[in-house]
């Protein structure tokens, strides 16, 4: 599973991407965030406030209950501010 981070979340975590194996107890976006929070203070800070976290799986926006597979690309980022 490839994880991508953008903008504030990328800065909080300290890198822009990583490859992980889908953890046993991770079935959807919500539980993936729970898993990532345990990886360290930087992840805790990045994922502290779920209200300002957006997720795209395979480049399509999804809700936190979206199921995940090991082949997915999962991107985390704050609300968008382009234009």
């Amino acid at each position, binding site marked *: 599973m490839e994880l991508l981070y953008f903008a504030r979340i990328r800065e909080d975590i300290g890198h822009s991407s990583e490859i992980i194996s889908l953890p046993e107890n991770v079935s959807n976006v919500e539980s993936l965030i729970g898993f990532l929070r345990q990886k360290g203070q930087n992840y805790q800070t990045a994922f502290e406030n779920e209200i300002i976290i957006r997720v795209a799986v395979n480049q399509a926006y999804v809700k936190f209950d979206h199921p995940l597979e090991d082949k997915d690309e999962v991107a985390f980022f704050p609300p968008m*501010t382009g234009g």
Partner: protein
Amino acid sequence: MKVRVQQQNFNIAAEIKELCGNRTDIGAIVTFTGLVRDFHGENKIQKMTLEHFPGMAEKQLGNICQAADKRWPLQGGTVIHRYGSLLPGEQIVLVVILSAHREAAFEAAAFIMDRLKTDAPFWKKEQTSHGAHWVEAKDADIKKSQNWKE
């Protein structure tokens, strides 16, 4: 419609010319250009950095254009969004819409800009006289934030 995500600047007249060519069936051209402003509230902006999600940015802009095309009778259009470092006064985004009718062109251009603001994966970071910070989205509504279309 054409979508481009690029670092370099764009030229509105060249984009219009490329879209129209020698066509004589177009009645209305509406354009929107977004620029970097020198102030955000109290803060003087020195520089703006635009981060984007390569691939997905183009895809989302394409989706927004398709939605506009379904909704209004359009004759073509171009959406360009820049990324990278920009100074106050520089161009960020361009929308050009062609239609036989002016209402359709105005509405489609406004629609694309509204959707682009919330749906296209771009993020602005402002370098101000009081340090750098990520621009906050204007409607931080909890419900709305988790209610995205799949």
